[in-house]
């Protein structure tokens, strides 16, 4: 199975079919092979001089949500955090890709913050549209989770040779539109990327997908193309999003896109329901549709492996 690591694009496409069941993805210059999760765990990729590091993506915890199919989004978030703590390789940090809360209430933000403390890891946040609902349109979130950020909450940082960019596409949304980055943020992104070597692996995270998954439900970002143009010269770009509460992925040039599961409730596949409202699955199915994403970076190979696992696994 491991020789798939250096395989061809068709191998990657093959794996798309079973992506939802938990897969390890490896990327080399944007296209790559794939190996099954079980095989990967049994025999992790080796042969590199550099020790890999990992981080975890949590998304859409919707603390405060208490309706079908999940009467207690706090409980499932706690399960997700327990899962992070139980990982065999301790992640360097967690990123939360938004919709931390259901209604931007202080008690909901507070619960999320306290629960994440249990993970004992640094956490990097970006807001979802549910985190912008205080009377000041997102200030409550920023005061708690985005103190050192710019504008509506965007920022970047470097970690072990990888450049992480956190973008906000849920502020100042336009009537009839989808997600939006806005000219100010795009200008900042341009200057943030200027002067960086094209061989620097880039990880971009934002709440709403940075490609159009389904326009009828607003599942995309109107001005994402302008951001992607700025990222096009880099050899390895991984875009991590949430918002749609299910795994989707695609490769475009050297950019790999991926959306994570929610820890609160699943949403229907694009166009398969009258609306994107919560998918009301039976209780015994819920845990198999919630989960976390574990990301493995191997320096020197420009590869990022993403392992999605459910709360039932």
């Amino acid at each position, binding site marked *: 199975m491991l020789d798939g690591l250096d395989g061809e694009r068709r191998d990657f496409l093959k794996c798309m079919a079973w992506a939802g069941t938990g897969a390890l993805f490896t990327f080399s210059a944007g296209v790559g092979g794939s190996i099954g999760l079980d095989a990967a765990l049994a025999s992790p990729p080796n042969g590199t001089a550099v020790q890999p590091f990992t981080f975890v993506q949590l998304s859409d915890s919707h603390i405060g949500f208490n*309706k*079908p199919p999940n009467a207690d989004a706090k409980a499932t978030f706690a399960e997700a955090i327990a899962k992070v703590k139980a990982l065999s390789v301790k992640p360097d940090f967690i990123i939360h890709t938004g919709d931390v809360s*259901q*209604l*931007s209430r202080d008690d909901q933000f507070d619960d999320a913050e306290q629960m994440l403390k249990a993970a004992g890891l640094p956490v990097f946040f970006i807001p979802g*549209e*549910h985190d*912008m*609902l205080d*009377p000041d349109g997102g200030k409550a979130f920023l005061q708690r989770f985005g103190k050192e950020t710019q504008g509506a909450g965007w920022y970047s940082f470097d970690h072990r040779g990888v450049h992480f960019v956190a973008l906000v596409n849920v502020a100042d*949304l*336009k*009537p*009839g*539109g*989808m997600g939006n980055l806005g000219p100010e943020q795009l200008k900042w992104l341009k200057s943030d990327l200027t002067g960086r070597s094209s061989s620097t692996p880039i990880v971009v995270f934002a709440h709403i997908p940075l490609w159009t998954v389904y*326009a*009828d*439900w*607003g599942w995309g970002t109107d001005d994402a193309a302008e951001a992607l143009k700025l990222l096009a010269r880099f050899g390895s770009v991984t875009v991590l999003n949430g918002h749609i509460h299910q795994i989707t992925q695609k490769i475009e040039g050297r950019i790999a896109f991926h959306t994570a599961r929610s820890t609160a409730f699943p949403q229907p596949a694009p166009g398969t329901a*009258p*609306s*994107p*409202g*919560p998918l009301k699955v039976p209780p015994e199915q819920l845990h198999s549709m919630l989960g976390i994403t574990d990301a493995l970076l191997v320096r020197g190979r420009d590869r990022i492996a993403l392992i999605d696992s459910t709360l039932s696994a």
Partner: protein
Amino acid sequence: MTRAFKMLSFQAATLVASALMMSAVSQMTRAAPAPAAAVQIDNFTFKAPVVTVKPGTTVTWTNRDDIPHTVVSKDGVFKSKVLDTGDQFSFTFAKPGQFGYYCSLHPHMTGTIVVKG
């Protein structure tokens, strides 16, 4: 510029006059029920995307979804707080005009209130 200013003052005077007249009218017709209209929010849509009402009508939006929504005027005329399931927001449209609005969380959700005399 003087002309524009005169025009403005004239318009302002007319507005004041009509406001006075309207308050007189409302005094006279106090017994009549205030006109009302309702818009349901369901399945991530404003169920009546275009609603035509008479001036003075109070429109009430009710969120029937399991997900919160907002009702926000495109031109800053009105803005609801976040509406959780079952929550309502009302606005009284005093003047004629077209009032486009959207949900600021899910901006693909749009609607229009047309106020006609």
